């Protein structure tokens, strides 16, 4: 369990660093940085919205890599990590969609539009919610890990083609602002929040991993009572 302890320690360090980073980032974003020239204070939701997508990307990427690793090597650790990645990814994905929707209402005038990035990220959420649903319906740990890994792999590989097809379909989302056109104070606040959310995602994933490992151990004990008793 050396690897498990490493993940645990790494997660704790990330968690301790995330607390001051979040505090500083929120202060910088909500008080220190100037309001946006066009959108005013509405723009400040970006300090939560955009970092959420950093957390989403990091978590889903972890899930994808761990799923491939599981299919190759069949280590339960990789399955636990993939599960943790998807669950934390779904959390940040939802946060990103909700904050984006709240921002979209005063800015675009609608809660929802069929823009490529919105549509792709919403589909991403559905794909990975499907992953969690599949896990809930399978009892055998090995079968569950294998099928879940396949669902995550195919779902992730499909994302670019989903994105390009929806982008061809229609486009409205403003292109990302490049750091040169934005006030440097906004850039600093945003960077701090991005780092804070990445640390938060790492911390949450490590906690979820520990939980998944405990669940896995409990399952093994339940499935093989004689092995435990003898």
């Amino acid at each position, binding site marked *: 369990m050396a690897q498990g302890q490493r993940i645990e320690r790494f997660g704790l360090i990330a968690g301790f660093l995330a607390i001051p980073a979040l505090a500083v980032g929120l202060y910088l974003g909500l008080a220190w940085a100037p309001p946006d020239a066009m959108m005013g204070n509405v723009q400040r939701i970006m300090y939560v919205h955009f970092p959420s997508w950093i957390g989403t990307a990091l978590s889903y990427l972890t899930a994808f890599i761990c799923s491939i690793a599981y299919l190759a090597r069949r280590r339960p650790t990789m399955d636990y990590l993939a599960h943790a990645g998807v669950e934390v990814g779904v959390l940040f994905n939802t946060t990103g969609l909700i904050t984006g929707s709240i921002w979209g209402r005063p800015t675009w005038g609608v809660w929802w539009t069929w823009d490529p990035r919105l549509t792709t990220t919403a589909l991403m959420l559905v794909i990975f919610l499907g992953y969690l649903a*599949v896990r809930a319906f*399978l009892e055998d740990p090995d079968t569950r890990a294998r*099928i879940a890994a396949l669902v995550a792999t195919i779902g992730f590989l499909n994302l670019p083609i989903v994105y390009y097809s929806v982008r061809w379909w229609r486009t409205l989302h403003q292109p990302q602002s490049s750091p040169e056109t934005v006030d440097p104070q906004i850039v600093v606040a945003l960077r701090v929040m991005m780092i804070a959310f990445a640390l938060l995602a790492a911390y949450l994933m490590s906690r979820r991993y520990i939980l998944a490992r405990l669940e896995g151990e409990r399952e093994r004990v339940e499935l093989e009572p004689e092995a435990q008793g003898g």
Partner: protein
Amino acid sequence: MTRADFRRAWAVAWKDLLTERRAKAAFNAMTFFAALMLFTFGFALGPDAPGTPGQAGGLLRHVAPGLIWVAILFSGVLAVDRSFQLEAERGGLEGLRLFPGDRKAIYFGKLCANLIVLFALEAVLLPIAAVLYSIDLWPRLPAVAAVTAAGSLGFAAMGTFYAALTVNLRARQVLLPLLLFPVLIPVVIAAVKATTLALHGDPMGEFGSWMRLLGAADVLFLTVCAWTFEFVMED
């Protein structure tokens, strides 16, 4: 894949089609369901709802490509759902696994059978849609057939894969569409767009690019699913 694998794939496909031809269990229910959907859309949207200004026909005719593809997806999922079910119920899946040779042969065999059933469904469905939504199908048939074939290939490629993946799941009938439809969105978008252009005219010459997107999705789906099918058929 070797020649023997192609023979194995064809044997699997032939067996499935023969079972289907004799029982007609999936096909009849599926076709009836699809036709009923096309009929119900008429009530849901209303036959008199106005279409786009400047274009002939009402709303139903205008959105017909989307309605046709929704009907194909929702009824087609019943067909792909059954494709591993017969074997799973009687323990035949064990037998299939025990056969020598590449497991991809099973995938391509099942895919081939699903595709032929889908084509048969569409051969019934398209004329019904043409009559109900007053579409002049005959002169546009080659383009529509090409889109339908490419769209069905993508659908069957993913559908067969996910059907094998969910075959032993308790809530299979809910989970299969839940997993399948989100990943099929590129195929849906491209197929509906290309069908619309084929049926309602294509002033900007976009048909080719949507067909290329559809082809790219087909190739990607087939490659990824064939590669990873080995992992699906374990244990």
